[in-house]
């Protein structure tokens, strides 16, 4: 056999595409030649090296929001002791690294590794914004842009149609905008207001912040003030401290607390009294926010009543915190009719804000954090899992959504790979051979991976779901209501069942004493987790997503 033929056969074996005839040909040559065995071993070693290098992938995940100002999803990951191939990473949608001892690597090592990333300019995460959108209440923006709390804002136009927002400039100055307004962010130290009402709070750190209005420029001297622009008329109102007002054609004036200055194009400047009540205030902002989210929660709860009473639902974990529950660890199953013993129990995880401030969530951070649930040993012909999650980091090789404890026959595992792919799998034992031969009952999992969809930028809430039909072996995965993968496992064999048993949300199982176990804790938040005993349709998943969208 010539080298080329040999190479083709080995390559086909490595790629899993070797046919029976080729297999015999390859085996014959390997059995008879020690040299060919050496070459085979070298190629296997190369394959292993390439797979270890490719396991860590960086890219712009599907669904990354291009309208958002922050850096592209270039959360460059760091690598083990063998270092980073910076030159490749620079131009490539993938980057490569050896990841040594995944799962077992200590946090300390990971932190050190992350800080090494900055060694190459092109790899470092860059931020070109000048401010952060720190609060958003019921806000509608011009055009197709949808901003979210926590987004960085680039210099440029910012047009609010309704609702209210707070913008924190990197300099430390804060701007409140209520109702329709048009501002232009110029830098951390400068903005323009073209229309509407804006209140500014400027702490000593940000003294010198400039705000330009038609016909007037305001330089802050450490204070709280507001401006209003209504067509050609601009006015300035100082509530605290003092500001410099520069009006073209007249001398700079210092306007002090309690005073106002009005400028219209056809008239000169007019001094007056400032009226704080006419402008956006923090108090009003808070009140409005509370009202809005109470309304939102009420609407959501009403909508969820239909979901709770779906006859296919097994687990409806809505993550309500019971303030008067003494131990504060109960995660109720809201499914109707009630299933005894199916309530979850939080371990480690702490209560925090969920998709919106009055919706509680559990936050998973430490390797021990989890919610324990047990849905019993009943067997089903399929399943659906759907959850609202906020992923803060993909720290582990596998980051848990829901994992059955033992991963025994028919039990599901649902997790997010480090690369941002959703991964669903069901563990199945092999069937015993019909002739009663001895066999090792090893597992043959059915594994399904989506494309990269999860990224950790911006701490955004997302809806993830998977449906699995155990009779056909088809799994469909969803991200924000849209199907992102649909696959039948190559390992699927005839009619199978699924079962849950004891499971953990956000982590893996009950460690066996004395045995090291892979750490798979989620770094992030969960505020809804639904489990059904049948695969839901695409429309039903998209409906669940629509019901729960945070803004």
């Amino acid at each position: 056999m010539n080298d080329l033929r040999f190479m083709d056969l080995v390559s086909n074996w490595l790629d899993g595409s070797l046919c029976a005839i080729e297999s015999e040909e390859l085996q014959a040559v390997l059995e008879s030649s020690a040299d060919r065995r050496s070459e085979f071993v070298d190629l296997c070693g190369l394959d292993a090296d390439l797979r270890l290098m490719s396991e860590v992938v960086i890219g712009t995940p599907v669904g990354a929001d291009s309208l958002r100002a922050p850096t592209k999803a270039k959360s460059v990951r760091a690598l083990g002791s063998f270092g980073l191939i910076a030159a490749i990473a620079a131009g490539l949608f993938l980057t490569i690294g050896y990841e040594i001892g995944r799962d077992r690597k200590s946090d300390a090592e990971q932190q050190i590794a992350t800080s090494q990333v900055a060694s190459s300019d092109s790899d470092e995460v860059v931020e070109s914004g000048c401010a952060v959108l720190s609060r958003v209440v019921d806000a509608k923006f011009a055009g197709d842009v949808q901003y979210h709390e926590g987004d960085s804002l680039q210099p440029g136009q910012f047009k609010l149609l309704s609702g209210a927002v707070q913008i924190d400039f990197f300099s430390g100055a804060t701007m409140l905008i209520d109702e329709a307004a048009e501002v232009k962010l110029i830098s951390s130290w400068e903005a323009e207001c073209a229309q509407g009402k804006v209140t500014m709070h400027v702490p000593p750190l940000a003294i010198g912040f400039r705000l330009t209005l038609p016909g007037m420029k305001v330089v802050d001297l450490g204070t709280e003030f507001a401006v209003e622009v209504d067509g050609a008329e601009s006015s300035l109102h100082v509530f605290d401290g003092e500001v410099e007002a520069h009006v073209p054609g007249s001398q700079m004036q210092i306007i002090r607390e309690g005073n106002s200055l009005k400028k219209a194009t056809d008239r000169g400047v007019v001094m007056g009294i400032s009226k704080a009540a006419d402008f956006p205030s923090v108090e009003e902002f808070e009140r409005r926010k509370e009202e809005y989210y109470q309304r939102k929660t009420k609407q959501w709860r009403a909508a969820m009543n239909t979901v709770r009473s779906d006859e296919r639902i097994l687990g409806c974990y809505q993550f309500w915190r019971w303030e008067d529950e003494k131990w504060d660890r109960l995660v109720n199953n809201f499914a109707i009719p009630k299933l005894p013993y199916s309530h979850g129990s939080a371990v480690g995880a702490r209560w925090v804000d969920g998709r919106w401030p009055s919706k509680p969530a559990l936050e998973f951070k430490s390797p021990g954090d989890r919610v324990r649930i047990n849905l019993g040993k009943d067997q089903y012909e399929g399943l659906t899992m759907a959850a609202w999650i906020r992923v803060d980091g993909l720290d582990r090789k596998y980051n848990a959504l829901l994992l059955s404890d033992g991963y025994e026959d028919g039990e599901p595992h649902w997790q997010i790979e480090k690369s941002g792919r959703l991964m669903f799998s069901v563990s199945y034992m092999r069937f015993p051979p019909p002739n009663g031969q001895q066999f090792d009952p090893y597992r043959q999992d059915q594994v399904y991976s989506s494309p990269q969809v999860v990224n950790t930028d911006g701490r955004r809430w997302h809806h993830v779901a998977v449906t699995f039909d155990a009779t056909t072996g088809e799994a469909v995965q969803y991200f924000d209501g849209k199907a992102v993968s649909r696959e039948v496992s190559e390992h699927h064999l005839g009619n199978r069942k699924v079962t849950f048993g004891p499971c953990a949300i956000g982590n893996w199982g009950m460690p066996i004493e004395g045995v090291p176990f892979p750490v798979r804790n989620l770094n992030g938040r969960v505020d809804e987790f639904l489990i059904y005993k049948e695969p839901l349709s695409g429309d039903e998943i998209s409906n669940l997503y629509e019901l729960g969208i945070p803004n």
Partner: protein
Amino acid sequence: MSGKPSNYETFVRLLIEEESAVKAYVRRLVPTWHDVEEVVQQTSLIAWKKFDELDDINRFGGWLMTIARFESLKYRRSLARSPLVFSDKLAEQLADATGNIVAGDADRQQALEGCLQKLDQARRELILAVHQPGVTIRGYAQQNSRPEQAIYKSVHRLRQKLLVCVKQTLADAGLS
């Protein structure tokens, strides 16, 4: 991990050092990368359970490889008949085979990094993309609307090219 933290730390450190070597070893004995991960996970668990029995930690690498060998052969017997599963005789032969490359993991992998950098970007992307977890050449071809056979061919050629380059790099450095 309870009760003997220092022991556990030693174990983890040793395991991390050996992980790529043990994966490369198991790769030749089982047909898919998924199988490799199953076997290596099982191997690590058994090694931990028996770690107390190892008297000289300098022999950890060879000891771990012995467990991996045993686990691989046991595992492959449980696999369904498939053209990818070789005969028992060949599996034993492969378990004993040594490759032509004798350099240590770090040197070999560093050589591979260098060789990847010598490829143009499109080829580098391709070879790395098809080795990602869960990616098959067929799936990759479909996703990128390219003919499957052409991708197989390119991947075969790239493997050969990289292997030649790695060997040459190691030879130049006096490591092979």
